[in-house]
């Protein structure tokens, strides 16, 4: 009897992998290729006129001052969004782990929000954060004009960052709870006997030991924040006020889907893809360098 986990022959493994490959080709490679093609052409919405223009679409987008404002909002949104999600999820996971008896209940409760779609959440939060009704409107009655996300770009940005973090925390929480669980209890008990308090144990034992998982959730959050967050922006702020929350993913969506500007939107999407690759490469490089340094220490 063979014990190897490998399939023999050429066709069997290929056949088993085929459905996945077809799906990836259909939903990723084909649209990406189409996007690249459109980004090099001036393309009519109805497809009857297509003219090759080389890199003109890129030149035009890169020459547009509002692109840089959009890049800045993307950076602020992604960095704040990722930091907030990971920090909040870690805090929650740590508390659940710290108090194991009630932890089990909270573990389930905290996973629930994962089932809420981004756009639904956007609608709910828009109502909750409305300056005219709801709890925030009460603040406005106490101190007039203190909460006006329809005019104040920073407040609007805080709002979408909070909404984004809300969507990410449950996933991060699941991963981090599992990670904290995997740390042998002896280490923590030994540290406690030496007099280390809960916070000291977190900083010196738990966080260093779950660093790979922290890195993993941060990467996943980053990818989501750059590519998949336009639904939140669309339902909450539509990129406003005055373009303050017009992150790149939302602009690409808006230009293509509302404006029928297939060429410009494709060029933006390609730029977005490059940006994402660069961000992930940087993240991996930083992580690896740290791992190496620690290895030598």
């Amino acid at each position, binding site marked *: 009897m063979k014990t190897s986990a490998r399939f023999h022959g050429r066709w069997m493994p290929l056949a088993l992998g085929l459905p996945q490959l077809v*799906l990836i080709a259909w*939903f990723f490679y084909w649209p990406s290729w189409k996007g690249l093609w459109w980004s090099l052409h*001036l*393309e*009519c*919405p*109805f*497809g*009857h*006129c297509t*003219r090759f223009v080389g890199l003109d679409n890129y030149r*035009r987008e890169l020459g*547009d001052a*509002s692109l840089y404002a959009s890049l800045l909002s993307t950076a602020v949104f992604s960095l704040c969004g990722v930091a907030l999600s990971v920090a909040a999820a870690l805090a929650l996971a740590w508390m659940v782990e710290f108090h194991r008896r009630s932890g089990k209940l909270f573990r389930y409760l905290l996973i629930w929000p994962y089932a809420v779609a981004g756009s639904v959440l956007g609608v709910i939060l828009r*109502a909750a954060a*409305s*300056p*005219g*009704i709801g709890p925030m409107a009460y603040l406005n009655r106490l101190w007039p004009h203190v909460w006006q996300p*329809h*005019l*104040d*770009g920073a407040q609007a940005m805080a709002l979408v960052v909070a909404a984004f973090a809300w969507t990410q925390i449950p996933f991060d929480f699941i991963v981090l709870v599992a990670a904290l669980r995997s740390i042998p209890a002896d280490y923590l008990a030994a540290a406690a006997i030496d007099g280390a308090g809960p916070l000291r144990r977190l900083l010196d034992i738990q966080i260093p030991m779950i660093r790979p998982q922290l890195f993993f959730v941060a990467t996943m959050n980053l990818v989501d924040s750059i590519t998949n967050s336009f639904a939140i922006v669309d339902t909450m702020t*539509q*990129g*406003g*006020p*005055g*373009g303050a929350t*017009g992150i790149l993913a939302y602009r690409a969506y*808006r*230009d293509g*889907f*509302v*404006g*029928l*500007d297939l*060429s*410009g939107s494709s060029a933006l999407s390609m730029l977005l893809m490059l940006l994402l690759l660069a961000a992930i490469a940087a993240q991996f490089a930083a992580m690896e360098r740290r791992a190496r340094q620690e290895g030598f220490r």
Partner: protein
Amino acid sequence: MIGRAAARRLACALWALAAAAPLAGRAAEVEFWYAHGGLYAQAIDELCDGFNATHPQDHVHCLSQGTYEQTLRKAVAAYRAGQPPALVEIYDIGTADMLHSEAIYPVDALMKDNGQAVDDADYLDGIRRYYAAADGRLFSQPFGTSTLVLYGNRGKLAAAGIPGLPRTWEAFEQALRALKAHGESCPAVADFTPWKMLDQVNAAAGAPIASAGNGRDGLAARYAFADGIHRRYMRDVARWHAQGLLLPAVLTHAGDQPLAFADGECALSLDSTGSYAIVLKAGIVDAEVGPLPAYAGAARYGNTIGGSSLWVFKGKPAAVYPAAARFLAYLREPRQQRLFSARTGYLPLTREAQRQLEASPLGEPAAIRVGLASMALPGNAYSAGARLGFMSLFRLIWQEEVQRALAGRQSMDDALAHAQARGNLLLARFQATYAGTARSQP
């Protein structure tokens, strides 16, 4: 996500099979995509049911596809996939895209080919003007049409000592101040959309939005609004906003302009005649409707319109078109127009329908009467409204720049200059995109 998309595809395929099965026995199945929800969708569904009941040989499937933007986007995707509906409702600012698309069967030709007599001259002038191509032909059939009017809450105005609705912007500002002095928290409400603040105000003043007859004379048109009447008006708007006289709809309890007036919170609202349905439904008894104000001493021209028209895609089986023509003719019947008008506040489209509406026992609803009267004022080269490329994106740019001005991050003059410059880049690209095509003249 992938699983859900694949499931939807499968469901679509099954549905198509199921829908195709009875085709053999019946004459024609026509798919009609419309772009409304709520009250308006109910009225459209009623029209469809009426047609299907009276035309047993035809069957029209009326499907709501969401907002105007979503409907246009889905129509584009369906056309590119070779599966467009026979009929689709497209909003006013999509007209240039549709005219240039080379994907449509012109409605005037469709009606002629199928023996449906249509007298284009029977359409109200403002409506025909808006949708007509440069040679006067109608490539689509006007449908949900509205224009801008001034709604006032009679009780609140009278309490503040204002005798009637203001007819000039100067009187409008005085009314706002009187209302505020009388303790009104929301003298007027606005959602700061360019259809109301740019298209309509400029049309009423007979002032250009863009060169080349607002874009109707060709693709070389460029925006030209940043230093005319629009600048004067937007400076006023900025001042009213800064002084708490004109509230953004988001600050009201309703959070929405038509509702903020309909629920009695705000005293004045410049809004579409199409919002009359919401005002009626709210049961507000004090609603008074007047024309859009103008500046004192300036000539007052006819309003332009907004809304949608119905387009026919080419490339469907031949049996579909006679049925589509019958459905369009049915929608155009004065009786159906009246029904739709009365339910929604959209305007009747033809003179005959207008006459019948006037003569009906209830008379015309106030918003419709005022709207029709505003459109009937004499026009000039710019009263027909703008026909420009990428207008949906331009409107977003205008809103973005104006929001920055309202927040105090730039002056209103700069906002309009920026919006104009950015809009002109869009127009240049639209021109370049369609430069080599057959219909480079709209």
